[in-house]
């Protein structure tokens, strides 16, 4: 019924050619060569307003003195002054180093966890569909909740993890994981791995589903062990997905400082300071938009290299 009414609305104007309604105009427009571009237009306007323009404004900021809490200072161009300061800033180099550790360690840990989870879930035994959904949950958890609940679990007075480790004799006494410069980064990596491993589990499981059964059967006939099956069948089939998902995840890890902002705020000291967090703090706390802009531009360049690798590795446009 609804279908017929809708059909009438679109075809009727074609029959009554003398009444140029909006629907008819749109319908005849859709026959023209500009139609695909017209469909793209709203989204192009939006991404221009919300991404392209701000990004170029940000690049512009990086060449200016922009300290919004210092009304006495001008916001004129100081060209490469911000970049010079950045080059001499030990915190920049430290956060660059921390970024590399943070991104690589987290992405690889997540890949390992996600791979193991996907390999197990691929058995499709009774109940596994429910387990697969549960495994996905952390990926959809807000960082504010994820960060705080792990802060509670790791707390040095009441944390359950401390209680368990003391109980089984691994620790002598409760430890302030997130306040210890040596342990804050590993603890944050663990939390982010919890949050992010479902992403890998999801993609790798989808990849494993695509492995033809004939390959497994042939391997079974040859009496291949689990390890051989993994190395010679599953791993090669997943190669593209592994490379693409690692790069994609590395990009988002480099990009988003949310969890560290909630969990450690870069501390203790600067032990968990990463580039994105440092840039955000410079803007949010010190209103030094010029310097924050310069830091973000450096990140932008790093990210563009990573996304170039992603496009190359994933063959994402091969059949597009």
């Amino acid at each position, binding site marked *: 019924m609804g*279908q017929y009414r809708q*059909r009438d609305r679109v*075809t009727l104007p074609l029959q009554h050619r003398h009444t140029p309604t909006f629907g008819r105009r749109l*319908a005849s*427009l*859709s*026959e023209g060569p500009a139609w*695909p571009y017209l469909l793209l237009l709203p*989204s192009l306007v*939006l991404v221009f307003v*919300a*991404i392209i323009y*701000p*990004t170029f*404004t*940000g*690049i*512009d*900021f990086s060449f200016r003195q922009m300290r*919004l809490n210092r009304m006495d200072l001008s916001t004129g161009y100081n060209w490469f002054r911000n970049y010079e300061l950045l080059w001499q800033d030990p915190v920049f180099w430290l956060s660059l180093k921390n970024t590399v550790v943070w991104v690589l360690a987290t992405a690889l840990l997540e890949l390992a*966890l996600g791979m*193991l*989870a996907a390999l*197990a879930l*691929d*058995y499709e*035994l009774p109940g*596994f569909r429910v*387990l697969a959904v*549960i495994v*996905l*949950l*952390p990926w959809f958890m*807000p960082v*504010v*909740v994820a960060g*705080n*609940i792990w802060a*509670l679990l790791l707390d040095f*007075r*009441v944390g359950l993890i401390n209680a368990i480790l003391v109980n089984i004799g691994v620790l002598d006494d409760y430890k302030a994981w997130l306040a210890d410069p040596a342990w804050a980064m590993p603890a944050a990596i663990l939390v982010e791995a*919890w949050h992010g491993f479902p992403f890998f*589990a*999801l993609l790798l499981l989808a990849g*494993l589903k695509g492995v033809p*059964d004939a390959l497994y059967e042939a391997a079974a006939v040859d009496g291949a062990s689990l390890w051989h099956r993994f190395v010679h069948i599953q791993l090669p089939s997943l190669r593209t*997905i592994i490379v*693409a998902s690692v790069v994609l995840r590395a990009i988002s890890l480099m990009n988003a400082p949310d969890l560290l902002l909630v969990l450690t705020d870069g501390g203790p000291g600067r032990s968990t300071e990463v580039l*994105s967090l440092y840039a*955000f703090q410079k*803007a949010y706390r010190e209103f030094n*938009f010029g310097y924050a802009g310069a830091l*973000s531009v450096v990140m*932008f360049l790093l*990210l*563009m290299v990573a*996304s170039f690798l992603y*496009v190359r590795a*994933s063959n994402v*446009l091969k059949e597009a």
Partner: protein
Amino acid sequence: MAMRHSLAERTGAYVIASGFAIFAAFPLLWTLLTSLKIERDIIARGIRLLPSPATLANYVSVWTQSNLPALMWNSTVTAALTVITCVAAGTLASYSVSRQRFRGRPQFLLFYLVLRMFPLVLMVIPLFVILRAVGLLDTRTGLALAYTGFQLPIFIWMMKGFFDVIPGELEEAAYIDGCTRLGAMWLVVLPLVRGGLFSCAVFIGIGAWNEYLFALMLTTSVGSRTWPVGLQLMVGEFQLPWGTLCAGGVLSILPVLALFAFVQRTMVRGLAAGAVKG
């Protein structure tokens, strides 16, 4: 894998899969348990799993004594605006790059892909200045506009996965029947991707509901502040007790869990298709 496995192999798979499910779910379960405990039990040392006595006092206090209801309303409005804009503009764009043949199509696809990799920090800093200049700083509309920007490319790529699997013959048949291209899109193709569209909308909605960084930078007053910012402020400034914090956490993830449970199967397909095309 659809084949027979030995008992040992199946047991191993069960142990590992259940282990991961526990690892994934336990922190959430712990939030729930903590939210039901009295303060004395929470700050007690040692392992105390179940709340005894169980209490709802934390929920009452976070709902009545903080501005969580107002914060959650702001999040709802912001998420709704984001979803509506993304669905309207993104569906058209995704349809275009998936089902139309035109010059520059691969370039448009690449463009939307690379947009996903722009650094958020590089956007959020100028957005503060731009939104302030046009009077949209500290408004839900301004925040939703910012969200639309970085969610739209993801939405377009996810929806493309759903559009791509529809056979092209369907539209050709419609053209032969005298349908215009608009008619074929609206009457033939769009009804077929309804499920995918809904799950992508949910994905965008959850993203907007959860988002913290942009909200922190772009909202400053109670009139537009979203719940993640408000909750984190309470933690920082008022030393929120753990029980109350957990109750707030549970309340704010309930909508996420409900929506996720509702669409998880279609959404999983869309995510896999949109993230990596292997």
